[in-house]
């Protein structure tokens, strides 16, 4: 586990207040950095790498002529990995063995053209931010949602943070892929009111292909979650070309009915809408689905609704389209 000022700490990529679709009510969502899967459609690529990272936003760069603070502060004088194009605008960061990731360039960049993804945050710092919106949680039955990245990769800290929230009477939710040892999961569950997880595909080989990981451990953990009596929401990001067909979706429905006895709160089918393109660009990463052209809302919306209705009628599941419908209490 990580520490900051002798306090347990987590590597956090982002904190989003007023999230309303990941658990009940108004929530503060905390994104943990680091992930052990590589889903082709990932829209939060900044949460994959388990260390702080620099993102580049050339549109915000003032140019070397007008600013140049980043190059001036870089300890690698004359061979800085910061690459600027002809007109002096930052364009990328070169892979460099010499770069010690000191992050000073991000620190001085006045316009945040160099943005730091990932900050080590102590328990007390996070609790202070979480507490700011307490009155909103109390009004709406909201609380905190831990998400990522993969929360379970920082399971010890997650468990401590959630315990602290429960101590403060704040509702807790964890969004996880469950690709982790059961012991980690169970430690986190001790202080978790609601679990949100995904089933991306029932076929293990296909799952490996599209997420970089098999699904055996995940499915086992999901079963264990139900056995433990946890409140569980299962989601499927519906991605055309990978799982947007009746057979794939029916297989998931069958698993939930037969293996989990349908004991989940809600099953959500989420349309994949290709977001986060600018984040891939900022990290100088290739979007695995860069060629994908998402269909118009007029096309996908009824299709997702049809799939939800299909699961509801054929498998008796509480299936819904999207994450906008209230969770049954």
């Amino acid at each position: 586990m990580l520490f900051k000022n002798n306090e347990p700490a987590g590597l956090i990529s982002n904190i989003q207040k007023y999230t309303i679709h990941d658990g009940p009510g108004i929530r503060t969502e905390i994104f943990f950095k680091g992930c052990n899967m590589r889903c082709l459609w990932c829209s939060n690529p900044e949460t994959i790498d388990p260390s702080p990272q620099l993102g580049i936003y050339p549109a915000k760069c003032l140019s070397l002529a007008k600013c140049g603070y980043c190059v001036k502060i870089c300890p690698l004088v004359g061979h800085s990995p910061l690459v600027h194009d002809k007109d002096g605008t930052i364009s990328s960061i070169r892979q460099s063995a010499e770069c010690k990731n000191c992050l000073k360039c991000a620190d001085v960049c006045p316009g945040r053209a160099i943005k730091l993804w990932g900050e080590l945050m102590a328990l007390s710092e996070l609790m202070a931010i979480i507490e700011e919106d307490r009155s909103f949680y109390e009004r709406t039955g909201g609380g905190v949602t831990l998400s990522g990245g993969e929360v379970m990769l920082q399971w010890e800290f997650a468990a401590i943070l959630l315990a602290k929230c429960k101590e403060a009477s704040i509702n807790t939710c964890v969004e996880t892929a469950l690709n982790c040892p059961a012991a980690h999961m169970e430690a986190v569950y001790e202080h978790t009111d609601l679990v949100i997880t995904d089933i991306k595909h029932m076929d293990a080989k296909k799952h490996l292909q599209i997420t970089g990981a098999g699904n055996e451990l995940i499915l086992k953990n999901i079963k264990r979650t139900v056995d433990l009596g946890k409140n569980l929401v299962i989601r499927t990001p519906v991605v055309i070309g990978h799982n947007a067909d009746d057979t794939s979706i029916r297989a998931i429905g069958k698993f939930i009915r037969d293996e989990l006895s349908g004991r989940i709160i809600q099953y959500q089918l989420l349309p994949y809408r290709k977001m986060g393109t600018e984040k891939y660009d900022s990290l100088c990463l290739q979007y695995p689905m860069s060629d994908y052209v998402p269909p118009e809302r007029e096309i996908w919306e009824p299709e997702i609704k049809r799939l939800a209705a299909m699961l509801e009628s054929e498998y008796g599941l509480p299936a819904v389209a999207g994450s906008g419908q209230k969770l049954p209490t």
Partner: protein
Amino acid sequence: MTTTKTTTTSDTPLAIEPIDREWGVGISGLTENPSPFPRINKMLQRNKNTDTTADAARALIITECFEKYAMHPRHTLWALALREVLERVPINIWPDELIVGELAAPPNSAPIYPEFSIDWLCDELVNLPLDSRRNDRYVIDEKTKNDILSIQGKWKGKTLSEATLATYTEEEKKGSHLGAAVLLEDLYIYAGIGHVTANYEKLFKIGFGGIRREIEERSSMLDIAHPDGLKKHQFYDAELIMLDGVSAYIARYGRLAAEMANAEPDATRRAELLRVSGNCLHVAEGAPRDFWEAIQLWHIATNMIIIETNGHSVSYGRFDKLFYPYYKNDIATSALTREFMQELIEHSFIKIHELRKIRDKNAIVFSSGTIMGGTALDVGGVDEDGNDITNDLSYMVLDAHAHTRIPNPWMGVRLHKNTPLEFKTKVFNVIRIGTGEPKIFNDEPMIQSLTNYGRNLSDARNYIGVGCVEPSVPGKTYGWHDSGSVNLTKIMQLSINGGKCIGCSASCKQYAACVGAGQTLGPDTGSLQSFHSFDEVMESYDKQMKYWCDALITLINKNDLTHQRLKPLPYLSLIIEGCIEKGIDISAGGATYNGSGPQAVGIGTTADALSVIKKLVFDDKTVTGAELLEALSADWEGHEPLYALVNSDRMHHYGNDDDYADDIARFVMATYCKHIEHRPTAHGGEFTPGVYSVTNNVMHGSVVTATPDGRKSGEPVSDCIGPAHTSCCSHDRRGPTAVAKSVAKLDHARIGNGIILNWKFAPSAVSGESGRDSLIGLMDTYFEDNGMQSQFSIIGRETMLAAQQNPEKYKDLVVRIAGYSAYFVELSPELQSDLIGRTELSFD
């Protein structure tokens, strides 16, 4: 139009809608035939196909009477003149109408008010034809144009505007609307005050006939041998002249309807016309006996206020409270059906939408698309005893908006801790349509802000938000709401630069009177070159603010005295409590409650600017005051890193639930309030500060050069009470909960003239059940925290961009602006850009 079909499908509208009916998210007016009533859809269509124009009839009669009755006391003169207008002006009843009455001009046609000002209009008619305007376009025929031009000479030197400006000193002109526009005090120089709600309760109870009897009785008891008795006697005589005109006007419609019925071949329409005739002939003197008669009297009585006063923001009261006794009785006796009353409400909305007020070429750049302006109508809230009043009509009024999707009336919903959840569900489903209607008020701080200015508790509980949002006791108040506005950001600039504008140069039209005369625009209260601490900055700001608030109050009072002298209002004096009782005209302080409410503009920008100064110059010492001034003089050219820094999240900006900046915002607001609140006005009562800009933030920003918060020269300042955004970025970065908390930290009880908080949500952020309920939860929490008001724009940014590209396709796109909603494509480009630039809260 991808964003127009966001979530729920909109099925056929129903005469009686289910409470939880959803109409979709962010679809605004982009829907065919929104009403279940064919008559309403037909009227909506007709309205859209009618050009906006002006009508000279009122102006011609007034001009003639002004000469004819010149020997009379002013009050009597105006009673005689208005009586003649009401007796002589052409009237019409239009196809399908069940409620009749016009503005002394046909629908979509603006009457002309030469007694206030006429030169600007004649100038535009000749040099800048009003049909060539890009927005707020008027198609005026040759005859009307010539009629208006023909009377211009007769008003030379006699108008209210000339009389007011004659009282200005050269020093006062420097910062006024005629000069550097630190202050905008001109709204009631060129037009009337408006901003009132008639005492409909009394009118409904006793009718105009009852008011006549009351006046006759009071008049008969006077000792006219005593000069005080004589003055009152003359006042009452004029009021009786006025009443003759009022009753005659309403009865004219009654007779016209009867004539039209006689000639009507269709039996159904004939019966309708006969009923309309009966309604008018009865309410010409009598008290209304059912819902239909009441809505007829309500409409025509309000029109006459506008015909008389040339004021906007003439408001319609608390509809559900006012009409419920009639509704209940008509249902109980089966006199009228609920469906028919729903149709009448929708009909009355279109009648209000047909009203027009013509504004000058400068006003329509920054305040475009207002149509009439300020046609406030509220529902919900508590009664005089603090009990919830929500009833069937509260729901029906909201459905009526969903069924018409027009930006009139300007709807307000009063919420409080006992508002039923069902009603809130209805309110927020209507809000999610995306027209920007209705806005919501929080009863507790609104009531507090009224009791703080001497309104008694039960009156305060009966408040309505007049015009945009101004707290006002209906039927009892002459509040001069919106009497001026103060450019806080400009004043901040003067306070850090020795009383001079940053970038002061000979190209400024005030240069000769100002620096050229060896003076400065404001007093020299210090400069960033020499301040030693942030306390000195605050002290300078405070002194500078006092100077300008004193100046504003003086100018508004000069304006007020001129209105008293030249433009008494005999009709309005009939229907606002206090005037008949005291025997004093409303303009001279007759009303039970009086006041005057100027606005602070740019609180967010000013707070951010001071916060940047505190942090960079005094806390961190990153730059010196002189360096910062230099960057501002250069409009940030050559100081790009500093510009980026002050716009970045490294600064403390208002709207992020950050006490560092929010405490400064509290200081900025308190400093303004301190120099305005409780000071006496010329017609009685106290000055009441307000914190909203409507669209003046664009105007005020246009005259302010670069400021330390990261604004460039000429950019709008922050709108209303909300956080700032510059052309670089939005300064609120932590989402809606942080904005709500920051705003709620301001001391709302002192804000006697109201606030506006604009929210802009992407449709996806409020869609679905959880989107709706979270929005309700957000507002409940903000209100629990003593937040005062909120209003919502739920139109996607891309929809607005598409509407700019394709205005023809988006003609019915109604959007929320500030105090009001309007058709997006009818707005000036400046205002369209400001709307698109506001922070959109999106959570994908």
